[in-house]
């Protein structure tokens, strides 16, 4: 038996720079604590290995395994940050994962087959990543798989948990007594060859994946028994019991192939399992039988969505396009001459906000999906749209005491590089939410929500919304937001307090023309190389501030209209700004049917019309506030989408334009990003503002369970 010392003395102690906070779980190898990383100011999971485990397996061996596992970097694998040892202790520091294990999910709710496949694809992808690097898990089981509140799946304990287990397999199969040990939970996942005493390899991981998928689809494990002998005997000799009729034939076939008794009869690679499950995902809709009550409810359209996804390479340009009927993704090489298109994702839903988060080695797409019936959810993908999270519960929600309900998410803003788990969302009704754990949990920024001005903010045409979040990359306490109609607000203390800064910005819809607040600001822009200067598109008026918003000057010299929505900075030139004027608030279309981008290269001193390639006759277009975006290449690319569903691109900083897509639904947002893969040299960074804030996190309160083992 493995033994470890009493838990209590560990609480409050510090190992290296990790302060142990509380015990959150325990397993065959030791105890898991929540600890606080005092250097990086974040919570982590710290697994303190039991002395017995170290004695049995050997310190050097454990260290080597943990170090190997720490080389894995995959969105579905719990990241190991550090392995360490003191005189007495050997410990592993890893990502703190909040959520529920697959075991708990299967026990409490019926998973749809679509969910089973989505989880299966992610586990298979994690295994493929590890196997390609020569790392075998050896203890795949549903309790080692966590589903975060955001719906992301994480495989725990790569290369860690089972060295001991495999050493003890011999004992287990021979002794009834040992079945009382911690290893009982693992036995039902053991492959026949492992029970015969062979060391587990990548094919025994695939067997365990088959058991796990069977369990998720049927809610029971295939090989059961009252004793270890009965379970072992079933694993070695009996075929898996038939799966329930609700399990699609294709999924059943994948599971049974994983459960071939002879390793040679199984899939030979995890990537084959992934590919098989992905193919089934597309076909699931076709095989779904309509419920009898559906058939009596009138005609139906069955759209078979065999979607082509993007294959994205390092250095590619990615365009995220949100429409009122779904999201589209486009990719191109750096030449930006030809674009591949994928979508629509989230059929029929309004996509007001999208973002790309490349911090900390991620390739995460964020999207807010607004279903007019079923509400707004924040979702993400780590593989450029193949799999999206689908959280059970909304992660952004107003606290009960506010009495408010989320209507829409208008802006998703990734935080500074130095705070890679910080994100912000601007929502309707106007409020700012913050996440400090990579988007798993969110808190209302009370300093702004409880501002005394709030009761007098007025809904604009689109509602009362916080649609723009901009922050100073150099000063983590400084951040700006824009609210329609509330105006421009600034915080200098990381969000604790906010001040209206609208001096000089005109209001046309109230008797007082220059009030302290209440302006209908449409968008703001900032270049990080000149952080004291801001540009602002108002509901009538283009403004510039040279003092972080303390005062504003009208810079709409010679424009055909100073009404408009979108305003973006050139990525490398802080004096260069792009806008798309529309005629008026009554006739929100491009003036006189000319589709013209206007550019200033002297910070608003003068403006020039950019027309080459854009229609100059009968083009009554509207470009919404988030529907224009620059990329960060040189020469810069500028992209915008129209309400009529046309997508235009310039790859020469606006000199010439090309329509790259037509016939989309109303375009609500366009975001461009340059993809940077692991280990590749960094291309020039996108200059979009990155906000900063530091406050005590209240996320712990939201946590249900963490890194349970």
């Amino acid at each position, binding site marked *: 038996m493995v033994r470890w010392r009493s838990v209590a003395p560990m609480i409050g102690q510090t190992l290296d720079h990790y302060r142990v906070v509380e015990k959150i779980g325990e397993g065959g190898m030791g105890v898991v604590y929540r600890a606080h990383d005092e250097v990086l100011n974040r919570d982590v999971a710290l697994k303190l290995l039991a002395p017995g485990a170290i004695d049995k397996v050997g310190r050097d061996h454990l260290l080597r395994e943990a170090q190997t596992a720490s080389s894995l970097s995959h969105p579905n694998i719990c990241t190991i940050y550090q392995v360490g040892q003191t005189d007495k202790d050997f410990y592993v520091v890893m990502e703190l994962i909040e959520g529920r294990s697959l075991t708990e999910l299967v026990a*409490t*709710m*019926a*998973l*749809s*087959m*679509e*969910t089973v496949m989505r989880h299966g694809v992610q586990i298979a992808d994690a295994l493929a990543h590890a196997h390609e690097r020569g790392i075998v898990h050896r203890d795949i089981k549903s309790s080692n798989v966590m589903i975060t509140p955001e719906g992301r799946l994480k495989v725990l304990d790569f290369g860690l948990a089972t060295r001991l287990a495999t050493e003890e397999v011999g004992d287990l199969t021979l002794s009834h007594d040992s079945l009382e040990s911690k290893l009982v939970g693992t036995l039902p996942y053991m492959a026949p060859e492992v029970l015969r005493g062979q060391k587990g390899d990548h094919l025994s991981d695939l067997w365990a994946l088959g058991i796990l998928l069977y369990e998720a689809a049927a809610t029971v494990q295939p090989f059961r028994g009252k004793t270890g002998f009965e379970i072992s005997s079933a694993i070695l000799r009996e075929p898996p019991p038939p799966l329930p009729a*609700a399990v699609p034939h294709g999924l059943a076939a994948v599971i049974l192939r994983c459960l071939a008794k002879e390793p040679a009869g199984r899939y030979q690679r995890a990537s084959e399992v992934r590919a098989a499950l992905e193919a089934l995902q597309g076909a699931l809709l076709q095989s*779904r039988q309509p*419920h009898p*009550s*559906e058939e009596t409810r009138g005609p139906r359209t069955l759209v078979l969505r065999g979607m082509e996804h993007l294959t994205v390479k390092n250095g590619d340009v990615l365009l995220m396009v949100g429409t*009122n009927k779904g999201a589209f993704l486009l990719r191109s090489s750096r030449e930006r001459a030809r674009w591949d298109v994928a979508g629509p994702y989230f059929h029929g839903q309004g996509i007001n906000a999208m973002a790309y988060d490349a911090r900390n080695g991620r390739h995460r797409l964020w999207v807010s999906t607004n*279903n*007019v*019936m*079923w*509400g707004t*959810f924040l979702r993400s993908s780590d593989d450029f749209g193949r799999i999206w999270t*689908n959280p*059970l*519960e*909304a992660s952004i*929600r*107003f606290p*009960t005491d506010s*009495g*408010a*309900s*989320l209507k829409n998410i208008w802006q998703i803003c990734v935080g500074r590089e130095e705070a890679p788990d910080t994100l912000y969302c601007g929502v309707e009704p106007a409020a700012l939410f913050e996440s400090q754990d990579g988007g798993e949990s969110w808190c209302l920024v009370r300093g702004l929500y409880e501002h005394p001005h709030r009761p007098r903010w007025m809904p604009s045409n689109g509602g009362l919304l916080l649609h723009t979040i901009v922050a100073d990359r150099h000063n983590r306490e400084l951040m700006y937001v824009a609210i329609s109609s509330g105006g421009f607000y600034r915080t200098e203390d990381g969000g604790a307090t906010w001040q209206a800064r609208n001096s000089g910005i005109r209001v046309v819809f109230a008797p007082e023309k220059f009030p302290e607040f209440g302006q209908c600001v449409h968008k703001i822009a900032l270049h990080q190389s000149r952080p004291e200067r801001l540009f602002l598109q108002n509901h009538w008026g283009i403004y510039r501030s040279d003092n972080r918003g303390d005062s504003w000057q009208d810079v709409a010299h010679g424009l055909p209209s100073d009404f408009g929505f979108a305003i973006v900075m050139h990525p490398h030139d802080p004096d260069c700004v792009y806008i798309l004027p529309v005629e008026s608030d009554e006739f929100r279309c491009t003036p006189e049917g000319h589709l013209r981008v206007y550019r200033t290269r002297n910070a608003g001193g003068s403006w020039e019309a950019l027309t080459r390639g854009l229609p100059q006759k009968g083009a009554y277009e509207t470009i919404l506030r988030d529907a224009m975006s620059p990329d960060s290449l040189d020469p810069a690319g500028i992209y915008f989408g129209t309400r009529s569903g046309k997508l235009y691109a310039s790859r020469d900083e606006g000199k010439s334009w090309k329509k790259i897509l037509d016939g989309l639904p109303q375009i609500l947002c366009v975001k461009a990003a340059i993809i940077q893969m692991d280990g590749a040299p960094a291309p020039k960074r996108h200059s979009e503002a990155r906000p900063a804030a530091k406050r005590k996190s209240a996320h712990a309160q939201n946590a249900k369970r963490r890194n349970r083992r």
Partner: protein
Amino acid sequence: MMQVIFHIPGPLREFTGNRGVVQVEAKKGANVREALQTLFVAYPGLRDRVLTESGETRQHVNIFVGNENVRYTGGLTTALSAGAEISIVPAISGG
């Protein structure tokens, strides 16, 4: 205790293991809100899609007991009898 039956619309069956009809056990004399709470415990993905975080039925979701929209019978406090059939139905809307 009493049994009540929920009819789940197609878009939400992802959260009920593809079941279109779900039977739950509610306490005797339960109202719609209490029966929904029982449903949400079994199928947690439904809660935030049917109700707002302040506990109101979403604007474009209708809940029927039998053939009657609960908007006209006391909303979520509408009392249920054993065997009641509750339908969650998306409203006519779009754009």
